[in-house]
């Protein structure tokens, strides 16, 4: 069932409104949620001379999409799925395996905040740079603020309460997507799209690049965006296929500890990707030390 999410056009989708229009609103750079002030490392890359023109920028965007873009797409898809699940079955425990091993009073089964904190922790674990964590949480907080007014929902209220300092941006994006009527694939697409459009726009502003040239670069990335969104949804599986591929991070550890329980929905997200981009981490940290910076990140 969950592997079919990527197709998203099954019989089950016909009786509910398509989220396509909502996706356009959500991914639009005009969405008033504070994204315009973030360059995703592009400003620091420009300052260091790593991005000097369209060719450099194309490589930067492709690399960003393959790493941070894919990870945020998967997190957004997971958040969207979680939001839909908890909206449909608000009392059903989610993200908590039988024999989880956690202290019994660390949140009851019925605590709706718990799976959100857990998914947010998955995002934290995949964000090595403190500067990036902060930038992600600020954007997440602003997005939730905006989305709660545009697409009010119990899920967004729950998320805002669960992570009061601001959920990571892809988590907020996934929850907002679900509230807007998008499915996980669309949430993943919005996240992947955001991961390259923000830096591209920043480069246009900072270097005075031809905006049409830069939009052509983005158009060239369209197939890769589709692939990223599909891969993101494919990662929403209940169990890790033991193919010998190394799996790191808390999701994997949780799955291992849970053993047989990993096959249940409560096992968390054992297959979420954890691709890192050390260069992006370094750019984010370096950016903080630039006294003349224009963008927040």
């Amino acid at each position, binding site marked *: 069932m969950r592997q079919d999410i990527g197709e998203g056009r099954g019989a089950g989708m016909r009786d509910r409104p398509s989220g396509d229009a909502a996706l356009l609103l959500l991914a639009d750079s*005009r969405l*008033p949620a504070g994204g*315009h002030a*973030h360059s995703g490392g592009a400003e620091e890359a420009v300052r260091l001379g790593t991005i000097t023109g369209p060719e450099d920028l194309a490589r930067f965007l492709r690399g960003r999409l393959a790493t941070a873009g894919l990870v945020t797409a998967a997190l957004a898809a997971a958040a969207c799925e979680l939001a839909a699940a908890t909206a449909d079955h608000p009392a059903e425990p989610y993200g908590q395996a039988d024999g989880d091993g956690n202290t019994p009073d660390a949140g009851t089964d019925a605590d709706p905040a718990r799976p959100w904190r857990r998914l947010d922790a998955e995002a934290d674990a995949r964000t090595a740079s403190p500067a990036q964590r902060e930038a992600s949480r*600020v954007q997440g907080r602003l997005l939730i*603020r905006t989305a709660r007014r545009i697409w009010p929902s119990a899920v967004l209220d729950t998320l805002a309460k669960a992570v009061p300092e601001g959920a990571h941006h892809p988590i907020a994006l996934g929850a907002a997507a679900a509230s807007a009527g998008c499915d996980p694939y669309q949430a993943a697409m919005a996240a992947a799209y955001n991961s390259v459009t923000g830096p591209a726009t920043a480069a246009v502003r900072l270097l005075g690049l031809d905006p049409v040239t830069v939009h052509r670069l983005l158009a060239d990335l369209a197939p890769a965006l589709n692939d990223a969104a599909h891969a993101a949804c494919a990662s929403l599986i209940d169990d890790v296929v033991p193919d010998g591929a190394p799996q790191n991070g808390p999701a994997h550890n949780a799955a291992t500890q849970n053993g047989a329980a990993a096959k249940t929905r409560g096992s968390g997200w054992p297959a979420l990707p954890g691709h890192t981009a050390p260069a992006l981490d370094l750019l984010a940290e370096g950016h903080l030390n630039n006294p003349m910076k224009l963008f927040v990140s």
Partner: protein
Amino acid sequence: MGAQHDDLHDAADPHGRALRLGIGGPVGSGKTALVAALCRSLGPSMRLGVVTNDIYTTEDAEFLRRAGVLDPERILAVQTGCCPHTAIRDDIAANLDAVETLEERFGPLDLVIVESGGDNLTATFSRGLADRQIFVLDVSGGDKVPRKGGPGVTTADLLVVNKTDLAPLVGADLTVMSRDAAAVRDGRPVLFTSLREDRSAHSVAEWVTSLVNTWKHANDHVHEHTTPTTAA
């Protein structure tokens, strides 16, 4: 609320929050100097918060903190990613977040001032961010600026023309500026200042005080009085 609330500070504020005053205008016109002057004048009698929108990170915020006109913690800086007007008009999320952070930390407040980054004549504050706004020009940009209009000059609740001390040096005719501004502003007020000579911005502070008092006690009238009728 039928009860009378005479105590300014403990009154049940009809809005449940501080008045939000936007201060916008071109680069170098004296926005930060005006914010500093208002903090000097109003700080002793009002609970204030300030949000700055800088071109480069925290330049204005640091200036205000160094000026010692307000508890440094009550000054928050918002970065705007090359687009100061976007942050006050099209996407106000970061500024609203900063305003509400100040109110949560130090509230209740009487007045939160949001200073925009220096921008052009078309930059105005969203009504979702600022309840009232001041647009600051200076005479050294030339006495034709009010005639050129633009939303800042024509629609701001108060137009401040600063650096009047420079008028003779740059050949600016204040009478012309006053007449032209009146012609495009539909009766809304204009004040001339020299913040270098009057570091407490006396006349502007009076105008703001009156706004805040009206906001706290009889908000229905303030709308009729200073909001363009088309806004409703």
